[in-house]
């Protein structure tokens, strides 16, 4: 059967056993990349001609914002897979992604405020980019709240998935807000289709930190999903085995 691999992927036990081996590698990769990228970006990359040293918060701000947006799609797609295939693992991934995404969105907003004061002259403005990013934070918090608010797990799973899916419309709005409307926030620096408007001496440390953030995201998501799986499957034999044998 062609779909067999997909259903096997949906087995919490198989997932738990497979991912256990990946965790140390992901932790190592994210630690190395984040340490190297931070030292490179904060200590060795040149300062910006206009903004001086204050631009260096980009090395936290941009990776956090990237993952906040990408993580939302991951949460929504997991929710969709859960709804369509009734897959418990997908729902667990969806629920695990919500608090991580909320933290990343908060970091992006917070570092943006710190960056805004010395450059723009204001911590906060209600322009389209910043407001839509705040809505993203509320969507993440909404999914978290919904998952706690309903006692019956399956009902909560479906409710969270629906909210996550409806919220996906916000992601292209955040991404394109700086092009569609007049905003105080500047347009994108890193572009997929054209050359980026950042000097290579600043781009490479930024890229290192971004990849490091991706690894850290993967590590955090897997760890949190595994914890959720153990809790959800507590009555099954394999979880009892894991808990008694410690592996």
């Amino acid at each position, binding site marked *: 059967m062609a779909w067999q691999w997909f259903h096997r992927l949906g087995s919490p036990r198989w997932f738990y056993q497979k991912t256990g081996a990946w965790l140390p590698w992901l932790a190592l990769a994210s630690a190395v990349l984040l340490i190297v990228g931070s030292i490179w970006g904060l200590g060795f990359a040149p300062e910006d001609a206009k903004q001086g040293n204050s631009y260096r918060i980009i090395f936290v701000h941009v990776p956090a914002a990237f993952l906040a947006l990408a993580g939302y799609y991951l949460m929504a797609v997991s929710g969709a897979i859960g709804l369509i295939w009734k897959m418990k693992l997908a729902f667990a991934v969806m629920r695990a992604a919500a608090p991580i995404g909320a933290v990343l969105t908060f970091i992006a907003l917070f570092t943006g405020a710190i960056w805004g004061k010395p450059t723009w002259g204001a911590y906060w403005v*209600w322009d389209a980019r910043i407001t839509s990013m705040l809505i993203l934070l509320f969507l993440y918090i909404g999914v978290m709240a919904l998952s706690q608010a309903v006692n019956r797990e399956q009902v909560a799973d479906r409710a969270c998935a629906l909210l996550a899916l409806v919220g996906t419309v916000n992601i292209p709005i955040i991404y394109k807000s700086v092009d569609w409307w007049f905003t105080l926030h*500047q347009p*994108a620096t890193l572009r997929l289709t054209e050359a980026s408007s950042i*000097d290579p001496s600043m781009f490479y440390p930024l890229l290192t930190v971004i990849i490091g953030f991706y690894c850290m995201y993967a590590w955090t998501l897997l760890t949190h999903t595994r914890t959720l799986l153990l809790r959800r499957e507590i009555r099954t034999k394999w979880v009892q085995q894991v808990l008694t044998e410690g592996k």
Partner: protein
Amino acid sequence: MTMHPVRRQRLILVLVLVTLSSAAVGFVTFAMRENMDYFYAPSAFAAGEVPVEKRIRAGGCVVPGSLQRADKNLEVQFVITDGEAELTVAFDKILPDLFAEGEAAVITGRLMPNGILRADQVLAKHDETYTPPEVAESMVSHKSCAGGAKI
């Protein structure tokens, strides 16, 4: 590789949900598109679209050479442009560090009947380029709104 009919139906439902909710938000956003702008461009002032003596925001590129400072106090005047029209701004507080001629700025204030924008806040809008000082010096034009006066 065929999908189970029940799953296919649920997939279609999910797609319909996402499409309809996105369309709804899209239409509302499109209907409110003018309110989504954080500021008016100088050409909106020239076209008379901006209410007089109401608190509004304007944004544009500070025209090089237009900045005039008073001798005795902090009073400054400068002109902003979007490449089509110009708007004179008057301000009496300290300008942000990144405020410069040839760079973009966003101004909150009231449009006076004489056509001058009386500002109570000026924010600097920096561009999306990051360059080391040596590279910036060697470039012919590093001003973010030289030429096209993009804002």
